[in-house]
């Protein structure tokens, strides 16, 4: 019997084996590239720092104690605030975008292509391009000066606003795409039904569109919020003195040479995010039970 036949026979001999076989490649990659590095980091976070980077073989909780100091908790809080703001702004900007694309008829494909177009360039290049726009001698300031609007350059780059702009620009497609997927399936007859029943535009949005788009909104929020927490490029390059978690952690593995502390910071943030999701099982998961007439 050939090896292929034997594999086939094994896979079909017991229920579940075929599924296991199909999952195996993905599982291997995840174990090798996610689980093992996480374990290494978990171990690292519990050791003592080596003078020139690396770690000493001595168990210690010092890194966690330090991560919970007010200075670093403030950075964690600030990072969370940026992530929340980015998510909110993405939802605010992305909802009308997704709505228009879903209703754009034959232009739909072209517009969706434009949404994913930024992925075709490197994030680094995109970030530098934004810096070219915003810096003191950048496109915006040059234009303003040419129009006589400002005699001194406006400081746009290296401000919280610049960081927020960068984060929103980077994350927006992750909000638009899942929202588009839910809005595109929304039956227009539902809106007409609501309209005949007396619902004005705002009521149609609040009572029909928003609840039906909730799963897409939740998925988009997740896809924006989590990567933004760990964002590195934008806060590092556009943020100047505003320290966010991504830059802080990177610093520990770079110039500060404190691997245990960097690992501990990462785990503290991961713990907080997981806690957040466990506490708040909102839309996106199981649909809320049917409401009853009060």
């Amino acid at each position: 019997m050939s090896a292929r036949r034997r594999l086939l026979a094994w896979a079909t001999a017991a229920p579940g084996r075929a599924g296991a076989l199909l999952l195996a490649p993905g599982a291997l990659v995840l174990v090798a590239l996610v689980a093992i590095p996480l374990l290494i980091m978990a171990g690292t976070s519990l050791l003592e720092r080596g003078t020139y980077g690396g770690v000493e073989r001595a168990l210690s909780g010092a890194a966690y104690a330090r991560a919970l100091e007010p200075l670093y908790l403030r950075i964690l809080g600030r990072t969370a605030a940026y992530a929340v703001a980015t998510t909110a702004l993405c939802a605010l900007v992305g909802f009308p975008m997704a709505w228009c694309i879903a209703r754009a008829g034959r232009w739909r494909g072209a517009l969706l292509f434009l949404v994913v177009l930024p992925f075709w360039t490197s994030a680094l290049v995109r970030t530098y391009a934004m810096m070219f726009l915003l810096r003191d001698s950048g496109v915006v300031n040059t234009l303003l000066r040419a129009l006589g609007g400002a005699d001194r350059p406006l400081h746009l780059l290296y401000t919280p606003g610049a960081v927020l702009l960068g984060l929103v620009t980077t994350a927006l497609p992750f909000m638009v795409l899942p929202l588009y997927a839910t809005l595109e399936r929304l039956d227009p007859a539902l809106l007409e039904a609501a309209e005949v029943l007396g619902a004005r535009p705002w009521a149609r949005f609040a009572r029909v569109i928003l609840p039906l788009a909730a799963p897409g909104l939740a998925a988009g929020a997740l896809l924006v919020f989590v990567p933004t927490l760990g964002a590195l490029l934008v806060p590092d390059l556009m943020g100047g003195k505003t320290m966010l978690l991504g830059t802080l952690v990177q610093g520990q593995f770079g110039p500060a040479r404190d691997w245990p502390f960097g690992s501990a910071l990462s785990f503290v943030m991961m713990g907080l995010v997981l806690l957040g999701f466990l506490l708040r099982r909102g839309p996106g998961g199981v649909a809320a039970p049917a409401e009853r007439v009060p």
Partner: protein
Amino acid sequence: MMAPAAPPPIVEFDRVSKHFGATPAVRAVSFAIQPGEVFALLGPSGCGKTTTLRLLAGFETPDADGGTIRLAGEVVNARRPYERRLGMVFQHYALFPHLSVERNVAFGLEQARRPADEIRRRVRAALELVRLEPDTFGPRRPDALSGGQRQRVALARALVLEPRLLLLDEPLGALDLQLRKEMQLELKRLNRELGITFVVVTHDQAEALVLADRIAVMGGGRLHQVGTPAEVYEQPRTRFVAGFLGEAVVLAGRAAWRPGGLGTVQRADGSAFTVATPAAPPADGEVEVALRPEWLDLVPPGQAPAGENALPATVEDVIYLGETLHVLARLADGSPARVALRNEGRPVPWRRGDAALLVWDPADGQVLVP
């Protein structure tokens, strides 16, 4: 002498037109609907019946110079749907999937900001009206209901607001035959009990005949005829109406009219028949005359009854339909004629190839307008 004052129509379309881009969807359509009647818009897909309903609901507005729509005497061309106080049952019901049956039915009352206890009371009453037990079905989600139950919820959701007019878009199209018959009777009952005017869009002529007090037959964006089911079936005005409702045998020829008497239609193959001259006869010339298969009979050659029309024909086929037999015959000029005979339990007297005479009462022929 004064005619008794007719109640004002609840709906009036006065030469209403609607184009989508350069494509005309509804062309100068005029009709009036009386309070309390069931009015059917009947036609094949693309005939403009759905656009007409959407114009009435307010989802579409007539062309800038496209006539006027009146609801209870008031011009509503520019009124939004939520300002028109009418109910609508959508083709696929359009129930809100994220709301329970109760909340679906309560939706309109909540929009109108009625007090909670009034909403609760009226939702129950509306569900009972459509024969859904409120405690059983109220908390369910639409996706846990059968097609017929969804239909009832859609009806309750529209009727709970006590609209002056209920629009139904292909209301029975998604149901199977048995349920269809049941809901037809149910709709008639609701119309009788509530006295609300119903406007039904359908492509199914049988449904229109069963449901409607009056039928508007549409084709190609035009209104071809409005009348009671008997009128549109027995006196079709155009060839389109004759062909769309039931079967029709259409005979063409050159007519010579005699006001108040029988006109003569001379056929191309040399035969001729007579037909009652219409009240407003068209100019002498080419006409078409429509007949229903059940008005026609076949007799052996030479046995035409006195005073009846008789055209020579050849039997081509006999179709057994149970209640009736259809004999497909061909006239001398090659035009087809379908004759419906009552099945009287005797062997069919006609065989393929038999020579026969197609006979009918001259008063039955309906002169069509081009």
